[in-house]
């Protein structure tokens, strides 16, 4: 859809976003460290685009999504949505800004108040931000229900009376109520059964087409992300490892972690599965409270070398539209010392500036 032909103004621009959760220990509960859930993340999302955000559990995907909407107070960085820096808005300004940016949550059960009716849930944003009359509100609620394919008769039912897919539709309707421009979808399908996932994904696609929405689509289901996203950011331990157009990433991942991640995905075809060459990573993800000194991935990377253990690589554009944070692709390695890996040095001459 939108490849290299860059529109000038991104709808969302994230610069150096950091989200550290403090750890207090010891006799006096002193601040002894931080969980670096998100540690310097930058990207932008163009209007009408879907950016996929993938990575292992605990790598900070949800935290990015929440910090973006200022559901967490970011430790550092700027989040410019539609021209305003959300990360530094005052409380009242932020409230007024909320309609432009909304979120769809992972667990459709947990994200709906079990004691409110469907109409109450969808109507809540209208109560908070508009001064519609009762009738207008009802009308709007019905409209929204139509939009997400919920029968109008359901308006007075409670969440537990719906199936998982329907519940997620309620969540989406709530997010749509205020005509947002930007929606963060935090694993909206992870809790759903396979046969229902497709319904929700199709709905999201339809809505994007009809309303021109912009999505940040967080998921660890790589095949879904491939289906839905225009560009994909791969996160590892609070940092972006690779940010590439979806097509490129899936055909030829650059970062070793992205490569391993993609190879680990199960191919639902025995023929292909038998032919696939899996990269099995060793060991576990380090704790974000105590990340390695150098590259975050250096403890599990199959192609690690000395520099990786000392210096954190920055995210750099190594091919047009493709950003990678890896010493294998950085300038320093060429100038660097020993152990320069043979491959792919030719890609890293772009001198990306962000």
């Amino acid at each position, binding site marked *: 859809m939108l490849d290299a032909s860059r529109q000038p103004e991104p709808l969302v621009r994230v610069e150096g976003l950091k989200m550290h959760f403090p750890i207090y*220990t*010891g*006799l*006096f*509960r002193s601040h002894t460290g931080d969980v670096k859930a998100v540690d310097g993340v930058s990207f932008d999302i163009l209007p009408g685009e879907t950016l996929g955000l993938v990575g292992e559990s605990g790598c900070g995907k949800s935290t990015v999504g929440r910090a973006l909407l200022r559901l967490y107070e970011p430790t550092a960085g700027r989040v410019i949505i539609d021209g305003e820096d959300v990360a530094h808005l005052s409380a009242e300004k932020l409230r007024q800004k909320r309609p432009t940016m909304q979120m769809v949550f992972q667990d459709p059960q947990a994200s709906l108040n079990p004691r409110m009716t469907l109409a109450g849930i969808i109507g809540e944003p209208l109560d908070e931000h508009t001064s519609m009359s009762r009738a207008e509100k009802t009308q709007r609620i019905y409209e929204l229900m139509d939009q997400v394919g919920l029968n109008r008769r359901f308006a007075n039912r409670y969440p537990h009376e719906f199936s998982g897919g329907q519940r997620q539709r309620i969540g989406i309707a709530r997010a749509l109520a205020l005509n947002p421009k930007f929606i963060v979808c935090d694993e909206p399908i992870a809790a759903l059964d396979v046969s229902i996932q497709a319904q929700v994904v199709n709905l999201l696609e339809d809505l994007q087409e009809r309303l021109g929405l912009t999505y940040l689509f967080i998921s660890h289901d790589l095949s879904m992300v491939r289906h839905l996203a225009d560009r994909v950011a791969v996160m590892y331990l609070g940092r972006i490892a690779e940010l590439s157009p979806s097509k490129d990433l899936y055909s030829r991942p650059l970062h070793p972690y992205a490569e391993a991640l993609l190879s680990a995905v199960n191919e639902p075809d025995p023929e292909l599965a038998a032919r696939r060459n899996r990269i099995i990573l060793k060991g576990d993800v380090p704790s974000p409270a105590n990340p390695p000194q150098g590259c975050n991935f250096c403890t599990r990377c199959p192609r690690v070398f000395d520099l990786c253990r000392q210096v954190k690589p920055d995210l750099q554009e190594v091919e047009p539209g493709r950003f990678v944070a890896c010493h294998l692709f950085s300038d320093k390695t060429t100038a660097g010392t020993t152990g320069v890996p043979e491959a792919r040095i030719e890609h890293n001459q772009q001198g990306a500036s962000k």
Partner: protein
Amino acid sequence: MLTYVLRRLFIAIPTLLLISVVIFFLVDLAPGSPASEIPLTVPPEVRAKILESLGVNAPFHVRYLLWLKQFFWVEPMYAIDYLFGTDYAQGAQRIISYSSRSPVFNIIIERLPQTLTVIGTAYAVAILIALPIGIYSAYRQYSWVDQLGTFVSMVGYSVPTFFTGVVLIVIFAVKLQWFPSIYDTTLRITDWGSLWKQIHQMILPVAVLGLYNAAEISRYTRSSMLENLSQDYVRTARAKGMSERVVVLKHVARNSMIPVVTIIALGLPGVFGGAIVTEQVFKINGIGAALIGAIHANDLPMVQTITFITAILIVTFNLIADILYGVLDPRIRYD
């Protein structure tokens, strides 16, 4: 763990100080006066003198600070002197009861044995009864044993001890005359006969309190067991081919006992405080009786000291319960 304990102790100190002020303040503000115990035949001037000599009229903060010093400094000195035959205290003024003019701590120590034997035994008996019942009725949920156990423990929990106590006295002490109606604190256990006598006089109060505590503990045990019986690891244990006995008594019980043990620990300060009502009903002159007597007589130093010791015990046992929790449950690590 160590820092955790230290930190808790650190917090405990201001908490306790605050508690001591609160108690002192509340007890002190009570409108009754120690003079109410003095017979009306004593003329007003003499009363005034007596109150003066008790130090009742000193300003609040003076009395509080004095008490604080006596509690935390003088009394420990006396304790050391008593234990090691030293003389650090050098005759410093101790905390003196208004009504008996004797050191409050002597009274407490005098009364501790009764309280500990009766209430303590009741507690121990309660635990011994409660655990098997709780475990079994959870394992066979909705069986008749469970229904019965639930009913009995509900009854035990619902019927106030003063009622059960009174009923038992009427039946067993008055009508049947099987047991004495007045507890003898002078009894020394020297031989089988006196031991039997001691057991004899403890049966009724122990039964009343034991029933009450057993009811509570078995409720906790049961619900904790039920919680754990539905856990996945139980299925794992069964899938490993473990016998039901091992599954229930080893895997489940070990997990279920964690909250139960802490509940038991939290109940222990009550053993010191004595069950005021039970002591009252069975005429056991323990700490609880001393407290209620002191309240009625407006014996402020006594009330203050007993309540404060109870508060210390509560705080301590809270800490112990927390630590026990950590010791029993490897998942919990206090940093």
